[in-house]
């Protein structure tokens, strides 16, 4: 399934609505999620999973806590209904993205254009779904952040297809970023492989350093 296809498919299904080059969740799908949330039983994960057509352990990333189940499983159920088919792994990434869209969009004014803004307390689930990702943690009134943002935009002006790009507004998620990723302050760039932080750049770094680390993330295990 190619890049444009997934977004286009979600738009055709009425999950996403586009206007002026911006996308949002449709009201109908938002309502569908809420209805699923209110009618699903979360007492046993097995019971919930039986309500969703899915193959095997596809939804396992969303089952590590009750909070996670309540957040993501209704979306999976609503998506299944919209698709009218089994929720397969190809649709997996759409679930946390839809979740982000269902909420107020996180701050993004200080993040590079192509970095998808996410709520920091939901980062762990999101990162577990991507083999390679960059997370840019930033804050306002931060001159090093401004410089690092420019560097990231220069390095990633031609967005890689094999690395997901996310941004987090650090001050709003300071506790969870610290607890989960030992990340304190800004700017910080996390280079994440299969959900684990492989390395990080703290503070301002030169373009060649960011390029080198991005290359390592992309190429160390062979081209994708």
């Amino acid at each position, binding site marked *: 399934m190619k*890049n*444009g296809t*997934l*977004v286009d498919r979600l738009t055709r299904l009425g999950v996403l609505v586009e*206007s002026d*080059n*911006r*996308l*949002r*969740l449709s009201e109908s799908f938002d309502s569908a999620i809420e209805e699923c949330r209110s009618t699903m039983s979360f007492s046993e994960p097995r019971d919930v999973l039986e309500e969703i057509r899915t193959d095997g352990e*596809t939804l*396992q990333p969303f089952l590590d806590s009750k909070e996670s189940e309540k957040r993501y499983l209704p979306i999976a159920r609503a998506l299944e209904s919209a698709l009218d088919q089994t929720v397969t*792994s*190809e649709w997996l*990434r*759409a679930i946390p*993205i839809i979740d*982000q*869209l*269902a*909420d*107020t*969009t996180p*701050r*993004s*004014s200080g993040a590079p*254009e*192509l*970095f*998808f*803004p996410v709520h920091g307390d939901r980062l762990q689930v999101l990162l*577990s*779904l*991507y*083999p390679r990702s960059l997370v840019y943690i930033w804050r306002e009134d931060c001159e*090093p952040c401004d410089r690092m943002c420019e560097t990231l935009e220069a390095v990633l002006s031609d*967005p890689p*297809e*094999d690395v*997901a*790009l*996310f941004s987090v507004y650090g001050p709003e998620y300071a506790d969870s970023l610290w607890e989960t990723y*030992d990340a304190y*302050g800004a700017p910080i760039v996390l280079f994440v*492989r299969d*959900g*684990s932080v*492989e*390395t*990080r750049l*703290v*503070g*301002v*770094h*030169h373009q*060649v*350093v960011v390029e080198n*680390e991005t290359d*390592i993330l992309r190429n*160390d295990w062979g081209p994708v």
Partner: protein
Amino acid sequence: MPVIDSEEQDSDTTVNRRRILQALGTTTVAGLAGCSGTGSNGGNTAGSNDELGERVPTQTLAYWTGLGGTTATLETMAPVVQKNLQDRLGVDVEVQGRELTAVLGSAMGDKREYDMILGTNAPDPSRLDPTEVLGMYEAGRAGAGNPGNIANYADCSYTEFSQQQRTTIDEAERADLIHSAIQQFSEDVGVIAISPRVIAGAWHPDQVSVGGHDSGAGMDPLNPYVYYESEATDGDTVVSNANAVMVSTTNFPTVASPRIHIIWSHLINSPLVEYDDSLELRNVLAEEYTASEDGTTITVTLHDDATFHNGDPVTAEDVRFTYKLLWDNADAYPQVTAMPYESIEAVDETTVEFNMKNPTPVLFTKVWPRWGILHKESWKPAMENPAEFSLDTDNIIGSGPFQVDSFRQGQMIQLSPYGDHPVFNPKSRQVMQVFQGSESVFRAFQNGQISMILMQGMDTITRIRDEMENAKTHTQDSYLGAQIWPQHSYGATKFLKFRQAAGAVLDRQQMIAQAQYGEVDPSLYPTIFRGSHPSLPSEDQLYKHTDDPAGNEERGRQLLREAGWGWDNNGRLHYPPDADLTPLWPQGESPSPEEYPCLQ
């Protein structure tokens, strides 16, 4: 990028299409991420993912540019450092050359743009007293908003030793404190030493018999003994090269570079004491000096036969005036550190009493050697307008062994011996001429226009050796030199084991062979001071990087391995799994008194 103001931000539920495309468009593996079989480290030498922490990211090594021969040396050394760290420790390194002021400004402000800085310290004779250099690494200077500490090294034991020695009058006790500070610094690998600087020069024996150069101070334009003791063998004049700053102004206290002092504080004027060609402190205009038991009163007796170039006696009043001028106008004079004094008294014609607020041993080991005694009548107007003052260049009156025949600002100065100096008796005139760049110096020397050239790069000296068989050359290890300043406050360089390992694997032999033509021995101990510096403790009291001048990869790896570091299957270095990667203090802040009690 669409602008979203804060109000709009609070209620916005839309996202730029390109961002969603990027997030949804990345390739996924079939099934769950992580089930591809590669794991997060792709296998590793330690055997399991749990045994490796995060990978050490690419390190940035900066060196400073725009400094002629010094930059050429650093530019040659930097790729060797890069290769050694990459090949031997599995750490990628990016090398960045930037102007000195930019690099220093970044490090001194703890901006964390460069993980390591490759640079040198200049062998200024005032640094033969270690106070200035030791003070640079005290904890109170580290971090943002503080005076600046190029390595952002913060250790209270070190800081206390450094501070205490400043006010310890007893020489033996002071030496012990200095040694303790240097030992602590070496144990902490405050710097990664590479080599001493080379002080190199050349001369034409048929034009000059060079003296004062081969007892330790070398052919350095900061060594006045080369000028005192070198004699013309053909005619009565020795011509040498000068740095433009040396003849930039007659109002020399306003100049930031120490290079100007050779002319104005040693040749044209003489100080009370100075470091000789063996780097030992000796009396010049001071016949003797004593300190009171509590070290706060220093009494100086001048030679009673010392005169200025116009015959005026050099008196206690001239000494009093000189130091009042400097210390009361420290804001205008960048090389002056205002000393906390109660009074300076001219007790009689030849006796001066310095009454200091605290014991101040640096007065005679660092301050007096820096400043020549000025002719009060000539310099009195400077007291009112220190920044704008200038001397009448047709009538420069000094206290030194040379008097001024001619001064052409920015170009040249001509000096002739002053026969009534109480200590020195130079035999020949000195012409110190400015040339633009090392190539023009070489050409002028080759053409016989210059008798002797001082402080040249080894590339010039090598050319002279190759192309001018009748010329003589001399090289000397300096007491300061080249090193890497690792940033102690954050990142991989925060860890002692990493600094130790980096220091162990460097091929100093190769760097010296390529950058310094093999002229010096490698510096194997992590100190700023090098072998000839009088303050160094014996080597057995210091931590040693390695015994191998070519570096020892296995030693470096062993140091890391023992501390839990490891390498993945791509050969890249990883932190220990339990490594605390948080900086010692947040960027933009400075060490806290809670963590560093010496700052309370």
